[in-house]
């Protein structure tokens, strides 16, 4: 049994989903109520691999909302993640992916210190951030979508925004080791971490966002923040491939220009329909087949019975681990979303 811990993208979204699903007690409530709301299993899922193997899973709604971070309800935010994890474990789920902000909150607020949740002792090897698969899928999107748009990586400059994060650093490692990208631009807020990454890679230019974007043929956006960032498409190269791997995804609606191709990053398509309701709720274009790669990682771990926290901690994703998850991703019929 695999699990997915997810949440909705805003209070307004949460209220409309609660209304649509017929939970009036939740639909009319403000942020205070959501800060007290318990986790719930709201969907059961059946996934069939192209090998014919079938697995079952559960979707745990954590009731976290990004507004909790924006309004500094930090304790509520951390409780949502920990309580959803305890809920998943109590329901006997073998491997659960921490979707959306869940893994970011877990890492950022050092929630590994909290082992005991009421009468449950959290077993962290039952959870995965899913970041290895997300990073792998983003890299494949860079390789394949650039080809679709006629951008030759051997002559291209790739800017990675959020380069020092768990996913960003893994993307840099892969692009360095597995592609012939001409130039890598590294963008992040923390200068010390940037220099460490540059030293590890032995290449890459450290630039600020304003300077980097106009030089890039491909932009990989993997910074996660509660609020989006304005990007002026007129200052970007034409053509430019912009892979929005951040959370929540909002660049496509903000950046609209014929020469700029925005691709939802870290999204996979499955070859067969998945029996679930939840992806239409999170507004995927093809809800029966498209999903976040981090969620797909828990499915892959379940298919392969690799009951371990495959992706865990910060900046530990190696190219070899990406290869390993990539092979089973292809084996079971997942492929990266393309333009």
């Amino acid at each position, binding site marked *: 049994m695999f699990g997915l811990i997810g949440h909705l993208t805003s209070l307004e979204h949460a209220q409309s989903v609660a209304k649509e699903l*017929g*939970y009036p*007690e*939740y639909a*009319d*409530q403000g942020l*205070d*109520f959501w*800060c*007290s*709301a*318990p*986790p*719930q*299993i*709201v969907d059961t899922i059946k996934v069939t691999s192209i090998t014919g193997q079938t697995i079952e899973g559960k979707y745990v709604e954590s009731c976290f909302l990004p507004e909790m*971070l924006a309004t*500094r309800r*930090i*304790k*509520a935010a*951390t*409780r949502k993640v920990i*309580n959803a994890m305890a*809920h998943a474990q*109590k329901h006997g789920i073998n491997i659960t992916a921490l979707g959306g902000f869940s893994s*970011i909150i877990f890492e*950022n*607020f050092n929630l590994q210190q909290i082992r005991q949740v*009421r*009468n449950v002792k959290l077993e962290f090897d039952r959870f995965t951030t899913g970041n290895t698969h997300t990073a792998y899928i983003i890299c494949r999107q860079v390789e394949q979508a650039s080809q679709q748009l006629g951008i030759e990586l051997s002559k291209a400059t790739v800017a990675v925004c959020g380069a020092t994060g768990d996913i960003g650093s893994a993307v840099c490692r892969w692009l360095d080791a597995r592609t012939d990208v001409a130039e890598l631009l590294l963008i992040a807020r923390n200068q010390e971490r940037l220099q460490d990454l540059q030293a590890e890679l032995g290449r890459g230019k450290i630039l600020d966002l304003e300077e980097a974007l106009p030089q890039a043929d491909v932009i990989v956006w993997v910074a996660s*923040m509660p609020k989006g960032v304005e990007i002026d498409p007129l200052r970007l190269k034409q053509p430019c491939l912009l892979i929005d791997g951040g959370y929540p995804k909002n660049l496509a609606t903000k950046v609209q220009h014929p020469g700029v191709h925005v691709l939802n990053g870290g999204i996979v398509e499955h070859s067969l329909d998945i029996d679930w309701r939840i992806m239409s709720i999170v507004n995927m274009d093809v809800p029966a087949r498209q999903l976040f790669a981090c969620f797909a990682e828990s499915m892959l771990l379940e298919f392969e019975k690799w009951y371990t926290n495959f992706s865990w901690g910060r900046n530990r994703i190696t190219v070899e681990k990406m290869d390993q998850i990539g092979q089973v991703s292809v084996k079971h019929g997942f492929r990266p979303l393309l333009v």
Partner: protein
Amino acid sequence: MPQLEASTEIDFYSAHYQDAYSRINAIVIEGEQEAFENYQSLAVMLPDSKDQLLGLAKMESRHRKGFEACGRNLKVTPDMEFAQQFFSRLHQNFQAASAENKVVTCLLIQSLIIECFAIAAYNIYIPVADDFARKITEGVVKDEYSHLNFGEEWLKANFEAAKAELETANRQNLPLVWQMLNQVEDDAHTLGMEKDALVEDFMIQYGEALSNIGFTTRDIMRMSAYGLSAA
């Protein structure tokens, strides 16, 4: 990403803390005393489970003594008058149901609502308690799970017959709990316990209990949030 604020040190001997503690401690003592009496009433109503229920009643009495010791340890006199007033409506509802031999309603009030609330409150209290009270409370919370379990098992075994009465009893009694919680929100905050955390832990525990008894997720979401926004 915003940062987590460092939690402030609690001064267990400040006048402000002790004033709040005099009410919270009294509520806990009174709650355990009423639980003792309620399980004795239930033992009469459910003769087949008499020995087990008297055993639970005895544990509640022991808990009361433990919490009295916590008050003495901090040199606080519990405000028992406040606590009796605090529980009065829930107490009346239990008495009325008991007089009519409504076992299901009595079990919902004592074994589900009160036990779930006690478990939630004790779990939230443990990390912010003084050393003496922490040890006592850790011991108590383990027992409370077994009390909750008694109600769950009985109601599960009689689910179809009990369902309608459980829904009615939930509507009558859960709103009282939210009002009681609001009444002590400031005092709980002084002790380092946040209201939204208390509500969340209660809903988790209560939801689990309802699920074990046989209610669906949809029922649970409706029942466990009943009356919260109006309180």
